[in-house]
């Protein structure tokens, strides 16, 4: 299986769509834990990406440049914690793909590893802090483990999504240690972390795109 810039573009467009649909839900979660804007920040960022894709960026054939530009667009549209976090993820991932018009499974695997690492490095969060890292880090671990064993990206990514989902759900019970929600202390337990949720949406919509692409190919 090979990914072109067009595949990334279609994937990013589907993310923009999904974030729009989940806007209220993400805000609702953030209202309980933070300042209630996570749906808004995600929407602003992905709508900006969408606008860029609809104009010049839609022509970009270099998968690496595309991802870096998407990251920069997101960064300079959003503000808030998630700007630098997801932007760093996309830019680190993009670096891996620089100069490539076609991306193979191994490169896709490396893209996602760099993506998840990027968030962790930028935010300095650990598993258990009740952040998006609780989704992304288990996802990256599962991805790595499965890939190392089987070298099958689709199955590896399915494992990543499943681990990410478990990680996301684990944030419900957690007491927050990072970001705005940490001020709530014990009161933060009981609500799923919004960033962990949006991170899961990013993963699951990639998985959905993958399935469609493979189904269409066969």
């Amino acid at each position, binding site marked *: 299986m090979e990914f072109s810039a067009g595949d990334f573009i279609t994937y990013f467009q589907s993310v923009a769509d999904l974030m729009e649909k989940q806007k209220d839900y993400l*805000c609702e979660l953030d*209202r309980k834990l*933070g*300042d*209630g*804007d996570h749906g*808004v*920040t995600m929407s*602003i960022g992905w709508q900006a990406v969408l606008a860029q894709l609809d104009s010049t960026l839609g022509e970009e054939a270099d998968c690496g440049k595309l991802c870096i530009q998407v990251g920069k667009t997101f*960064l*300079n*549209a*959003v*503000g*808030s*914690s*998630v*700007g*630098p*976090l997801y932007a760093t993820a996309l830019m680190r991932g993009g670096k891996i793909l620089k100069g490539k018009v076609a991306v193979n499974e191994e490169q896709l695997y490396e893209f996602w590893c760099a993506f998840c690492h990027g968030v962790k490095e*930028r*935010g300095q969060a650990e598993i258990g802090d009740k952040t998006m890292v609780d989704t992304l880090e288990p996802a990256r671990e599962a991805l790595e483990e499965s890939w190392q064993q089987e070298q099958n990206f689709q199955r590896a990514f399915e494992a990543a999504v499943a681990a990410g989902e478990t990680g996301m759900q684990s944030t419900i019970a957690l007491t927050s*240690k*990072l*970001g*705005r*929600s*940490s*001020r*709530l*202390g014990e*009161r933060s337990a009981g609500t799923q972390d919004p960033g962990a949720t949006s991170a899961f949406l990013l993963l699951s919509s990639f998985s959905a795109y993958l399935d469609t692409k493979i189904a269409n190919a066969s």
Partner: protein
Amino acid sequence: MKKIINDPNQTVFDMLEGFTTAYPNRVKQLEGTSVIARKDAPVANKVAIVSGGGSGHEPAHAGYIGKGMLDAAVAGEMFTSPTPDQVLEAIKATDSGNGVFLIIKNYSGDVMNFEMAMEMAEAEGIQVEKVIVNDDVAVEDSEFTTGRLGIAGTIFVHKIAGAMAEAGASLQEVKDMAERVVNHVRSMGMALSSCTVPAVGKPSFELADNEMEIGIGIHGEAGIHRKPVGTADEIAEELTEKIITDLPYKEGNEVAVMVNGLGATPEMELFIVNGKVQKILHEKGIIVYRTFVGNFMTSLEMAGCSVTLLKLDSELKKCLDAPSDAIAFRV
């Protein structure tokens, strides 16, 4: 949601325009950005002081622009950090070759976005230093959290860093003094009501008619606990005691006091709180050098207040008393 606004998604834009047209001789908006700077920026032979953060905290941050305080303020969306490209514009527009000092409140968004801008500016050969303000004692500062957040104490950092820069201090000297402020300033807030981000349209949290929230942040975050509304004296006592024991402030210490309104609090109530704060400090033998009462760091239309204490030494006093012609902080 009842607000005097136009398009909820354009409030920051409209506000910046209304601000700039109110004071056309004193400030300018950098074209195509959400940065407001001193009309005469870059000011030669001076370290530039840049602050910023989410909007909704007015008069923070643009209200503190002026001789003796800030050179520029970067406005993010409501309660949302400005993006690195905007911060970078502010840095470039104010640097006169003596370097730029960033005052950042400790929110992961602000810290990460300002730090990315700092990296970009350094890549362009501009000297940049920063301080991270974390004066809010509501959250315990333990190894388990990212640490405390920055609230109204930030104004004292603006004032004192600004006075240092105006007096010709180097970037490192400004940084040292700003850190001294951060080490000696503590704040805590409370709210009677929540606030609504225009584009969100719903209050950040709900409080019953008889409830107040103690340890509130400045972004509509809920506080550390909720209880029945107390008297002004009880509120002043709870906030002040927590602040005093934290540093701690001791008998014989001299302090600056700030009683800050969160946006929808009548000034009358702030003065009533101040009355009790002064009494508590007096009883403990803590000497009040200077007091500031007003809306300095707000949270949209939140009703509530915060109390800030800054422990002073002779250098800090000099900086605090130095003239400032900032719109929202004339000294």
